[in-house]
């Protein structure tokens, strides 16, 4: 180690960060070089003077600490309130969605019935029973003709989407009146309920395997009667 090394490494030596093997070389040089030894002593003495002059007692930070603690308590409380508000908002959104969701289901079903069945807008209907049964098999519907009440027959069917989910749209007719039956995968049991959207009457129920929405532009009573029979078959 030479004098230049000593000068460069002095900060590490004075801060106590120097490795032992280097320190041995450092000490060896200081023992041999009077000039470096004096400089090092001057550094030590000046550091000591600096500490003595500036480290004489620590200021009282008690009031400051109390102020920061109060601020932290306030911020914690505000964060907790915000978290609670966010949770409440989320719950309200979920509940709102669940409450509004059937409405869209009924709107979609009623619109499909109005446009495709009542107004006869052109659609690619399946009329062949074998083809319809293939579609019905996707929904584990064994006998689509059995859904028809007395005097009604299956007219045609097609795949469609209601409330963002695929469904099988079956149309039954007695020659004068037509019923739409929308069938999709079920889940939780839900009893029969009646609804209306515009001129259309609707009835909905859920079994363990199916969810069905019956739509007619006829009367509410006819709609419910059709739905009860369908529920018995499904």
């Amino acid at each position, binding site marked *: 180690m030479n004098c230049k090394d000593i*000068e*460069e*490494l*002095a*900060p*590490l030596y004075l*801060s*106590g*960060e120097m490795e032992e093997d280097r320190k041995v070389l450092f000490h060896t040089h200081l023992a041999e070089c009077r000039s470096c030894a004096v400089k090092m002593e*001057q*550094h030590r003495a*000046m*550091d000591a*003077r*600096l*500490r003595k*002059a*500036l*480290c*004489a*007692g*620590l*200021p*009282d*930070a008690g009031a*400051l*600490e109390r*102020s*920061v*603690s109060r*601020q*932290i308590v306030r*911020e914690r409380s505000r964060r907790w309130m915000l978290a609670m508000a966010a949770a409440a908002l989320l719950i309200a959104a979920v509940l709102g969605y669940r409450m509004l969701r059937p409405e869209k289901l009924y709107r979609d079903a009623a619109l499909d019935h109005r446009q495709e069945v009542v107004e006869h807008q052109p659609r690619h209907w399946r009329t062949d029973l074998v083809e319809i049964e293939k579609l019905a098999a996707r929904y584990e519907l064994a006998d689509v003709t059995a859904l028809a009440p007395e005097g009604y027959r299956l007219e045609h069917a097609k795949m469609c989407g209601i409330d963002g989910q695929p469904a099988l749209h079956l149309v039954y007719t007695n020659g004068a009146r037509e019923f739409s039956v929308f069938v999709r995968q079920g889940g939780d049991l839900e009893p029969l309920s009646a609804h209306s959207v515009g001129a259309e009457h609707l009835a909905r129920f859920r079994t363990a395997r199916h969810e069905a929405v019956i739509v007619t532009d006829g009367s509410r009573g006819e709609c419910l009667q059709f739905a009860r029979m369908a529920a018995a078959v499904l």
Partner: protein
Amino acid sequence: MVMPEAPRLLRFARRLTGEMHAADDLVQETLLKAWRNFRQFQEGTSARAWCYRIMLNTFYGQGRKVRAMPATVPLQDRVLVGATSPGIENVEISQALDALPPEHRTVLLLGVVEGFTCREVAEILSVPIGTVMSRLSRARQSLREKLTQSEKVIR
């Protein structure tokens, strides 16, 4: 965890700002930032050094330029007529320190007065350790020269 550092931070902040109220505000902001950003603290590193880093970033981040240290001498360091020699000594050192360039003064305050290692000073200032070492060497040299000049004037 960082609250026990408040008195030391306050001492450093008074040196940094030169004003008691500004120092109080700076320490308060530093402690709150440390609490709010505690997730960013890396286990195994020095929490104390982390606090000083936050303080310096806050101070310079508030649009303050690195300036020649203003009247940074705390009141207790000021000498009165007829004061004893230790009081005079403290004022001389404070004045010599204040006359140093800010980057030299900062490394001396952190490395010598606050007792951080060169590695920790490098972390606090976000500079390489070699830079800290060379600044410390030059700062010690400059401070000694200023004190020697000051002593000559007194004699």
